[in-house]
C-alpha cells in the first residue's frame, strides 16, 4: 500500500482580487523507497502541494477538497495539534527551497537541529539530541565536529546538507525536497542529488522531489507528475513519460529542454505564458498554448485517465484517439 496518497486535492488561496485555484485536483501516490518528481513551471502549484501535505499553508490558503491519505488516515482533516505531534517532521518532513536563507543565522546549526528534535520529541534530553545531530551530520557527509558552527561558516552545499540533516532529524518516512538543486552550482547540485538518492535507498524514504528542471527528475526519480496551472496533466513512470510522452504540454516541455550531449538544434519555445490562476482558461487549461486545440478543449475539462497501466493523462486528444 502506498505510504502517502493524494486524492483530488484542492487548495485555494483567498486574495483581495479573488480566489486563486493554486491546486485544483491533484492525485498521486508515493510508495516506500520510491521518489516521485513534481515538475512544472513556476506558479503551477508544485510548492502549494508540499505546503498542503505538511499543513503549513499561509493563513489565506485553505485545503477545500480532496484527501491526503497517510498510511490510510486522512491528514487533511486532522487538527493542528495532532498534525504537529504525529505527522509533521516525525512522518513527513521537508527540505525547503533556498537553503541559503532557510537557516537562522544567529543560532548554531547544531542548536537548530536540536531544537527540531526536542520540539517534536520533548522527552529527549539536550545531550542526546546533540548526539543525534552529530550522527545526522555524518549521515549527510559533514564533519560532526562542525556541529557548533553558524550558518555563515558553511558553504552553500554544506548548508543544503545541513537542511537535509535537519529534515531527517525525527526519522520521517516521507521527505519532500522543494527545488533542492536551485541556487547551487552544477557540481554541488550533482553532489546533493546523489546524497538524496543514497539516503532514499539507505533509509527507505518515500520522496517527493519538486523541481522545474525535468533533467533532475530524469536522473533521480522513478515516477513523475507533470503539472500545469494547478492540475496534473500527465503522470507515470519516468522512462515511459520521457520516451513516450502523450500530453502536448509534456512533449513541448521536454523539447524545450536543452541536452548537452545531443546534436545542436534550435530549441522550441512554447508560445504564450502560463495562465493567471485567478481566472484560468475554460476547459483544458493548456488550450490557449496548445497546437492541437479542438472545440471540445475549450469547453470541457479533460479528466485524468489511465491510458496505459500506470500512465495517466488528461487530454482530449489522447482520450479521443484511444476511444475511436
Amino acid at each position, binding site marked *: 500500500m502506498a505510504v502517502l496518497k493524494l486524492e483530488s486535492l484542492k487548495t485555494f488561496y483567498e486574495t483581495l482580487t479573488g480566489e486563486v485555484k493554486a491546486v485544483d485536483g491533484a492525485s498521486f501516490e508515493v510508495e516506500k523507497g520510491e521518489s516521485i518528481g513534481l515538475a512544472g513551471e513556476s506558479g503551477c502549484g508544485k510548492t502549494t502541494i508540499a505546503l498542503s501535505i505538511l499543513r503549513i499553508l499561509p493563513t489565506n490558503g485553505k485545503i477545500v477538497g480532496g484527501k491526503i491519505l497517510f498510511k490510510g488516515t486522512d491528514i487533511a482533516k486532522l487538527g493542528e495539534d495532532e498534525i504537529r505531534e504525529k505527522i509533521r517532521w516525525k512522518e513527513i518532513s521537508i527540505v525547503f527551497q533556498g537553503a541559503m536563507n532557510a537557516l537562522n543565522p544567529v543560532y548554531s546549526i547544531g542548536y537548530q537541529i536540536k531544537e527540531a528534535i526536542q520540539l517534536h520529541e520533548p522527552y529527549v534530553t539536550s545531550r542526546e539530541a546533540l548526539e543525534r545531530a552529530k550522527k545526522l551530520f555524518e549521515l549527510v557527509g559533514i564533519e560532526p565536529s562542525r556541529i557548533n558552527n553558524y550558518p555563515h561558516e558553511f558553504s552553500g552545499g554544506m548548508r543544503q546538507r545541513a537542511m537535509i540533516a535537519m529534515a531527517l532529524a525525527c526519522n520521517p518516512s516521507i521527505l519532500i525536497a522543494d527545488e533542492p538543486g536551485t541556487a547551487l552550482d552544477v557540481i554541488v547540485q*550533482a553532489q546533493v542529488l546523489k546524497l538524496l538518492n543514497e539516503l532514499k535507498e539507505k533509509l527507505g524514504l518515500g520522496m517527493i522531489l519538486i523541481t522545474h528542471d*525535468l533533467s533532475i527528475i530524469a*536522473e533521480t526519480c522513478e515516477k513523475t507528475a507533470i503539472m500545469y496551472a494547478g492540475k496534473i496533466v500527465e503522470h507515470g513512470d519516468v*522512462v515511459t513519460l520521457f520516451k513516450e510522452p502523450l500530453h502536448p504540454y509534456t512533449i513541448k516541455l521536454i523539447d524545450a529542454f536543452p541536452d*548537452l550531449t545531443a546534436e545542436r538544434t534550435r*530549441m*522550441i519555445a512554447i508560445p504564450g*505564458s502560463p495562465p493567471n490562476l485567478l481566472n484560468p482558461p475554460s476547459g483544458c487549461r493548456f488550450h490557449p498554448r496548445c497546437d492541437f486545440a479542438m472545440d471540445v478543449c475549450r469547453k470541457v475539462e479533460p479528466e485524468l485517465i489511465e491510458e496505459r497501466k500506470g500512465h495517466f493523462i488528461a487530454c482530449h486528444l489522447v482520450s479521443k484517439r484511444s476511444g475511436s
Partner: protein
Amino acid sequence: MKREKVTSLLAIWFPRGVVVEMDETVIRVEGLRKWFPVRMGFFRSLFSRMQLYVKAVDGISFEVRKKEIFALAGESGSGKTTTGRVLLKLVEPTNGKMYFKGKEITFLGKNEFKPFRRKMQMIFQDPYESLNPRMTIQGILEEPLLIQGIMGEDKEERVFKALEDVDLIPPEEFLLRYPHELSGGQRQRVAVARALILNPEFVVADEPVSMLDVSIRAGILKLMEDLMKKYEVSFLYITHDLALARHICDRIAIMYLGKIVEMCDMDDLVKEPLHPYTRALMAAVPVPDPTSRRVEVKVKGEIPSPVNPPPGCRFHTRCPEYIGSICKTVEPALIEIKNGHYTACHLYSK
C-alpha cells in the same frame, strides 16, 4: 616603457592564434585583471599592512568575433559576471587591455567612453529588477536615445521598431504600460529591445534567461539569435548552464576562479573536453533522459575563496586528475592543444 614590457610579456604568454585579424574581432581582451580591495575594519587595518584583494578576474585574454555568440561559463564566483561588467566599464579594470574594434578602451574616462556605449550594451539577468518600475515601456526604451541625443520623430520610430523586433506586437499596446503589467518573458524582451535600440555591435547578456521559466527561455534565446543575424551583433553570453550554451553559442570559454581554463568551439567542447574541470562540469549537468546513467562526479568540495586562490593551478585542490607537485607550484599557461582549442592544464603541457 612599462606598458611595452607588459605587451611583450603578453605576447609570450599568448602566442599567435589568439589574436586574429583586427577587422574580424569586435572585442579583444588581453591579460585583463579586476581585483576588488577587501574592506578591513579599523583595528585590522592598524595591525595588518597587507591589503587583501578579491581576485575576481585574474589575467584573462579572449576575443569576441563579428556575428558570434561567445559564451563565458563557470560556477558562481568564477568571475564571469565581473568580466562582462568590466568590458562595459561598469566597473573599472585593475590592469590589462581591452580593445573595441582595435581601439583601446581600457582606461578611457567617462566622457571619452560615451560614444562607445552606443556600440556596447548589456542585458541584465533579472528582468524584475533591471526595469525601472516607475517608467513606462516607452520611457524605458527612449532613455538610451535621449542620453545619446537622438531626438524627434526618429526616436518614436525607433521605439516602435525595437518593440516589433522583439515580438511585442502591436507596439502601441505596450508603449504606455508599466513593467509590472508584463510577464517575466515580456519584461526580458523589453530588456533586449532596450539593449538593441541603439544598434550596438556588441552586447553582454548576463544570464538573460536564468530567471525565466523553461517554456519561455527558448523564445528569448531564439530572439537573440535572430537579432544577432539580422543586425550583425556580437554577443558575450554569460551563463552557468552549459546545456543552454551548447545550443546557442559558437565558441566558449570556461572560467574557474578568475582564470580561463579552456577555450574552444562549442562543438569541440562537447566532443572532447580537455580540462579536468570542464569534464567535471559537463558530467554534473543532468541529462533529460532517464535511461542514460550519469557519469560519476568525482570532484569534491566547492569553489575556494578568490581572496586567497590556491597556488599553482587553481583547480588542484579539487582536481581528480592531479599529477603531482607541478600542479601545486606552477601555474599552467593557456596553450593551444589543437586548432583553436586552448586549455590551461599540466596534463597537456608535456
